[in-house]
């Protein structure tokens, strides 16, 4: 699971007011290089919750992202590379995503998050 995915997943358990961002438990993580696409990054920037990305990347062991960014800073190649690395190259292979209000664990297995709710959570 890439952090691009983490940045848009939320817990929709019944009664939860704000299920985003999900906490992360890391049992196994990897880094996989992928070619950078700056147009894609610039398009995605407006959709990304930057703080959630920074926090998630830090949990995954990458702390090089600046705390705050505005769109004008995206012209910096260095920043784009860091953004690219955090968003797309850090992988959670095994672990869990945690509902911020209930602590419920959503398992991540072989890189695939399982966000299915139990019957009593609907």
């Amino acid at each position, binding site marked *: *699971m*890439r952090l*691009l*995915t983490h940045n*848009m*997943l*939320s*817990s*929709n358990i019944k009664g939860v007011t704000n299920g*985003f961002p999900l906490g992360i438990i890391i049992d196994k993580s990897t880094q*996989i290089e*992928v070619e950078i*696409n700056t*147009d*894609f990054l610039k*398009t*995605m920037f407006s*959709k990304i919750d930057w703080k959630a990305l920074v926090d998630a990347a830090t949990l995954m062991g990458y702390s090089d992202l600046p705390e705050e960014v505005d769109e004008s800073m995206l012209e910096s190649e260095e920043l784009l590379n860091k953004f690219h690395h955090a968003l*797309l190259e850090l992988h959670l292979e095994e672990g869990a995503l945690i509902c911020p209000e209930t602590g419920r664990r959503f398992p991540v*297995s*072989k*890189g*695939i*998050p*399982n*966000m*299915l*709710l139990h*019957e009593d959570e*609907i």
Partner: protein
Amino acid sequence: MNSVLGTCEHPYLQLSLKHSPFFRRTRLSLPPTFNNNRRRTQVKMASITTTTVEMGANNELLKKGIAELYDESSGIWEDIWGDHMHHGFYDPDGNANISDHRSAQIRMIEEALNVANVANSEDSSKIPKNIVDVGCGIGGSSRYLARKFGASCQGITLSPIQAQRAQALANAQGLGDKVLFQVADALQQPFPNGHFDLVWSMESGEHMPDKRKFVSELVRVAAPGATIIIVTWCHRDLSPSEESLQPEEKELLRKICDSYYLPDWCSTADYVELLKSFSLQDIKSADWSKYVAPFWPAVIRSALTWKGITSLLRAVPQRPPEWWTCLCKVVRNGCLGWKTIKGALAMPMMIEGYKKDLIKFAIITCRRPE
């Protein structure tokens, strides 16, 4: 929405191939007990006789059944038909050759985009950049749309096997950074409100036990101005004087539901009314039944090849119960597996449903207001 209720009931687990290709209507030697079975089973109206707890339990069984169905059958389908788990779109009077089907499946996607005017926009700001594929299968549509629009696409499926396979294919095709899959329920999508500018549901709506909830989630995750495209199986629209389908029509659908993992059917008009109730705009709908008709016979022909038959024989449940193991030993030297037999028994009913204009292959599109 009277027709939504009471067409089907799923109180127990039944594993069948939804669109199993292995059916021959006239040439199969069907067990005489089935042919002669005229036992009529009472159709239960879910809204009247089933409690909320029972409906919840039924839906849990349904979801589990759908997940297991596709966990077990997706590999077979991909092996023979490739990564698009939906029907092809054909010229009604044309003869479909086996080599035409891949392009017909692509055409289905393109024709759906055309109905909704997604592909026709000359304004680059209207090109979707964030797509959700609801009921994504092994990701055929997700990867195609992501590649076509240079977009990010999230796919959701109840089947962990499908999600893994979908991601593996995306990674192998260099799309692993754009096309991402998770196991999730279309009735509780794990996404924030208004996140996607194209909401795509290709032949998954028929699995949704609560059509209103299904549509409400499609709307919730759609951004202002987003397009929603639903391609799905429906039953015929009711005439103004009708309260519900005719008893024999309900009975036919009930039998079909008993053989596949399908909850209550609704009509195309029901979907249109639902979309109107959410104040969506540019609502369009069409009956595409005649454009998909060549698909089934072609699927049957492709399945009755050595590759098709041997693929089926390899499809055993991941944790087979003892009775299954025994049955496999019995049927292994035959030409069909147990799921195939069950699916085969239902296929004549699907064909009958089409010929009676009861079953429709529908497309419904709309746009969320800006």
